[in-house]
């Protein structure tokens, strides 16, 4: 039989845990579920931030989306960027992780450096890259001075180059995260597997293909899914680098939503677009996670 002190101690521990859980639940409800529900409600109205009264308009906002060219363009841009960055950042992440998977001090320092872009604020990263990529920026100055280019190239001033430039910057940021995920995954591979492979004469790319890559599968699932979701809702870097230009060609869906709500005063329609983005993000995340999980099992 437990004595009273033990029971009291256990009850007090449970209360402490309950308090923490309640706080987390409260935060989740107030800052995630509630705004989501409010946004969903708003998507069925013609809400305008400047008007006190708004009307319920049913599915009008959702039907309007079908003919919205700007929305279509922003979704296309966002999806291209999301998949492009996810592939590039994960490839780089695996590469960097393989290079940095050592235990000496210098490698630990380099790991920290590799993670640095992920720690910096997106706005700061974008400002730094802006000084590099603008017409009179460091990159053009270097390329022209080295006579690689005759005249400055519009890295942010033409639709295709701006897409590439944004992709490059976001990949740089995301590769810090993917590197750390793959490093953790690499370090969880039992050394015995590599030892046995060595004994069997399996080396180099074959060892990577047969052992390392399959064992990285759980890390791949996390890294790919989070990369995709992060880029699908990207706002800050694009806003600073190009503001969605030139001519809205780099306008992400998140940026379009903000412009709709606070420039065009169409909060209701912006909420409907936000719901669509949420749906697309959920669909993409579920599909990709499902596929990668199945791959984990089959490996």
């Amino acid at each position: 039989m437990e004595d009273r002190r033990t029971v009291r101690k256990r009850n007090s521990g449970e209360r402490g845990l309950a308090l923490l859980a309640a706080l987390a639940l409260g935060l989740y409800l107030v800052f995630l579920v509630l705004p989501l529900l409010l946004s969903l409600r708003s998507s069925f109205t013609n809400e305008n931030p400047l008007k006190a009264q708004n009307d319920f308009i049913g599915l009008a906002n959702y039907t309007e989306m079908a003919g919205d060219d700007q929305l279509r363009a922003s979704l296309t841009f966002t999806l291209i960027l999301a998949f492009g960055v996810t592939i590039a950042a994960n490839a780089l992440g695996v590469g960097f992780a393989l290079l940095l998977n050592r235990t000496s001090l210098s490698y630990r320092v380099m790991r920290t450096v590799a993670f640095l872009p992920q720690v910096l604020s997106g706005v700061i990263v974008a400002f730094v890259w802006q000084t590099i990529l603008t017409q009179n920026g460091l990159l053009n100055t270097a390329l022209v001075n080295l006579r690689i280019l005759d005249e400055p190239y519009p890295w942010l001033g033409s639709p295709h180059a701006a897409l590439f430039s944004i992709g490059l910057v976001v990949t740089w940021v995301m590769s810090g995260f993917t590197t750390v995920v793959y490093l953790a995954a690499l370090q969880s591979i039992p050394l015995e597997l590599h030892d046995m492979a060595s004994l069997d004469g399996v080396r180099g790319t074959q060892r990577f293909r047969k052992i390392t890559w399959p064992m990285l599968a759980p890390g791949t699932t996390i890294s790919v899914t989070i990369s995709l979701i992060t880029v699908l809702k990207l706002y800050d870097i694009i806003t600073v680098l190009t503001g969605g230009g030139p001519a809205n060609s780099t306008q992400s869906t998140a940026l379009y939503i903000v412009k709709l709500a606070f420039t065009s005063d169409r909060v209701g329609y912006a909420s409907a677009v936000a719901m669509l983005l949420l749906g697309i993000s959920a669909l993409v995340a579920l599909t990709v996670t499902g596929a990668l999980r199945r791959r984990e099992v089959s490996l």
Partner: protein
Amino acid sequence: MIRKPLLAAGVAGLLALTAACGSGDGGGKESGETALTYLVFETPSLDAKFWDDSITAATTQTPGVKINKIVAPSTDRDGYAKQLQQSGQFPDLLQSITPSNFVGAGLLKPYDKTWIDANFLLPSANSLKGEVYIPPTNSQIVPQVYYNKKLFTDAGITTAPKNWQEFLDACAKLKAKGINPIELGGADPFAASMPLVGIISADILGKNKNWLQDRYADKVKFADADMVTAVNKYRTLVTSGYFDKGALGVKYADSITRFTTGKSAMYPMGSWFLGSVPKDTADNFGSFPWPTDSGDVVVPFVGGGSMAISAKAKDTALAEKFGQAWSLNPANLKALIETDGAFPMIKGKTLEDYNVTVTKVFEESYAYVGQDNNKVSAIGWATNDDALPAGLNDAFYAAAQALFTKDDVAGELKKLDEAWKTAAQ
């Protein structure tokens, strides 16, 4: 057993969070004074010290007021004001906003017209349906064409162009001499639109001052033939290579540096550029109005101004008094004239009264304000009845950037008509 405490703590947590989230409004009575919130924005010229000093001066003249300054996170104070309104924190006073965005919702209180008429040169410069929500303390010309006299001389151009053909000739001569004719900070959408603002204001509004009112009444369209012809002039400038090929990658701030350091010969920009003219080389710069075919002078004009008053301010009379004191303080205008190229519009005062040091090109540009000429609303910049519907500026800027690379003038203008339809709903 864990469920009860979990539920209780959950409710408590939620209540605590709700209480924490219930914001104070930043205003109210504070030790006998009425606290008012005042939305301002900072730029390199209008820095924190400028606002603090100007608030202190106006507060001294308005007993009983205490100002709580709110600084907009960017120069887009309209957007920020809307966000504040959305979260129930609409400021009591709002500096340099676009009143037309807020008047429809009944959020602003007009100034006393007698006071406006008594104190300003153009009392109706900012007028919206007969009411004035922002005292017209100053004005701008958007755009004027600034030019580098030395580069003009180098290219054999002896006088500033007076009409469109002379303008094209000057561009051709400059290009032939290896000088970039026109500077464009195309990476910033508003700056990218400057040539288009000039062309439309001069060629369309110059011939029909009421064009924007007619557009509201659906009597004219952007896709009309005269507009297409006018906007094709912009394509002529682009296809002739009179802008830097990479102009859409040039930031507005860089475009100022490029022009003032002689990288380009001409710079169509709002007259706020005058605040950036380097003092030591100021005499090397001149200005002329955006040229028309006939050579008739058209001045795309914008009534600038100080602050608007929230109709929901705690004490609207006190807020108005503060706004009046701030608006008539010559020290505030001095800073705006010297650093922001603002043309003062207070009655009975000359430049000397503001104790300002201005350049020759400033005086040259300011002369167009006082002259009896064809002043029209600068499209996209007007803060009066000619203001564009909310959201249309973005579409206009996007069209300007698109037309830098696309030939489809009629298509882009049709898009503007479609955007207008949505925005005006």
